[in-house]
């Protein structure tokens, strides 16, 4: 099948190059030393720590507000204008807007940004502390900008799967709204929400476009380190370290996807 061949060549080959490169020396001998070197490097360890922290908090914030927003939209008229606008906008923000989004962010919270200036006018200096738009916090706030819409996209089908009959049945049996949420809605939705949050984590972990546009490769997160290792030519052998980092990234993502798959199996029980 041409499709299989195509994927094998254009996806399999680059992947093979990453794994092969990470596991060999320059002379072509098999080695684990590239991995050892990345583990022993304080800079790379910090990069992983930063990436994980950034991914965790942006995915949690994204999940909370994403579920809330999606619930508010789903409660509206199906097929209405609000839904169309929100779902199209979510698609744009979540999937396709890395660079423009970063610019919008600079225009808002950058040193001369609209909000920064507004806050300064009422006496709050955003930049008085250590905050800058290129700090981990600044970049994370920009990440939330695509995390929330992604959560909306991921969780909307699950929210739509909540049958109104369930609520009616619960209320018919004398349950209050709160008890319905506590005993029916939340247990049914929990696997979907957890699964989607895992996806958000993976998304933030592998994302690079926004950070690249905001700060270039100077922010110490894993994708930036890979970028530096490959294009920076700072260290001898840096190429292979970059590839080893790449493999480590894939391993993290695979672990996340396996958890997602396990959670998802439970989620499917109710949503069909």
């Amino acid at each position, binding site marked *: 099948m041409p499709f299989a061949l195509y994927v094998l060549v254009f996806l399999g080959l680059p992947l093979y190059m990453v794994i092969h490169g990470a596991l060999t020396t320059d002379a072509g001998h098999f080695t684990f030393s590239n991995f050892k070197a990345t583990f022993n490097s304080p800079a790379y360890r910090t990069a992983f720590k930063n990436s994980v922290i950034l991914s965790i908090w942006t995915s949690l914030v994204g999940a909370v507000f994403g579920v809330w927003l999606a619930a*508010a939209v789903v409660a*509206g008229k*199906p097929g209405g204008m609000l839904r*169309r606008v929100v779902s199209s906008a979510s*698609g744009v923000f979540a999937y396709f807007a890395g660079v423009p989004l970063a610019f919008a962010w600079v225009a808002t919270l950058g040193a001369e940004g609209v909000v920064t200036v507004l806050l300064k006018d009422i006496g709050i200096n955003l930049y008085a502390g250590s905050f800058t738009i290129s700090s981990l916090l600044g970049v994370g706030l920009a990440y939330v900008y695509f995390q929330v819409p992604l959560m909306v996209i991921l969780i909307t089908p699950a929210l*739509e799967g909540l049958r109104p009959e369930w609520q009616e049945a619960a209320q018919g049996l004398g349950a209050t709204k709160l008890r319905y949420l506590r005993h029916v809605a939340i247990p049914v939705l929990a696997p979907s929400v957890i699964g989607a949050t895992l996806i958000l984590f*993976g998304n933030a972990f592998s994302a*690079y476009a926004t950070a690249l546009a905001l700060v270039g490769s100077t922010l110490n997160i894993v994708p930036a380190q890979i970028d530096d290792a490959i294009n920076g030519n700072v260290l001898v052998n840096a190429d292979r370290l970059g590839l080893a980092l790449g493999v480590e990234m894939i391993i993290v993502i695979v672990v996340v996807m396996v958890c997602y798959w396990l959670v998802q199996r439970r989620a499917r029980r109710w949503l069909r």
Partner: protein
Amino acid sequence: MSFGSVGIVPGDDVVGGPEPQPVTKGRKERPRPWRIAIFVLAALYFVGPLASAFKFSLIQSNGSYGFGNYGQIINNSAIRSALITSLEISAITAVLVVVLMLPTVVWVRLRLPKLTLMMEGVTLLPIVIPPVVLAAGLEELQSHAPEWLVKLLFNHPVTALTPFYVILALPFTYRALDNGVRSIDLHTLVDASRNLGASWRQTIVHVILPNVETAVLGAMFLTIALCLGEVVIATLLLYHTFPVALIQESLSGTAGISVALSIITLAFTFGLLFALSFLAGRRHRPSSGRMI
């Protein structure tokens, strides 16, 4: 790039949804405080930065407000050439994706339905693999490849990036096309067409394609949106595509033009997806109700 369910694909349930469920009367008419609160928050958080960006784009190089930056877009040769490159990539990728995927989807549905799960898994791979890692692999490939391959592929951004953007687009396009093909009576159409003596190529082009027009358009729209936005691979491999040019221009002191262009890009992408939501809603499809 991104991850997970590709819910914006037509027929994927986000738009339109399953059959309208009987909602208790009054529930949808009276806006509740918790709904209003999140809508206000969302409007502030999402529209605010866009408005800020728009305001920024109106500041002209002489300091006054106006549409000067928008006018200068046409005069900026660096951005213009990058935009042309990206548009070429988008167009070729969009066509290539359909040529590659439509027969595959039809074939799997028709002859190898057991492979459906595997197809879903394979088309998820580009989402699982971080773009920066794919770029690293390409870089490695580039430095080890024989000269003829470098000449053939890597010497021009269009030939270098297009094949890999096809891969990146797989998660979106596979689902879009699969939803489309699933909604038609594939077996009957193919049997009829084959019985009347059409070849496989004719069957796909003249019988199936017109029936899944919306799905094909959807797949192409999503691919174009992706190609106009992808920046990581292009940057790492040092190709001068449109989003890369946006970043470079913003660093070289003409940020106003970059921001103006980003706003146009966002509006354009939103337009594509918004149009798509109408296309998808035009026909009623059996809903799948799955999140991948």
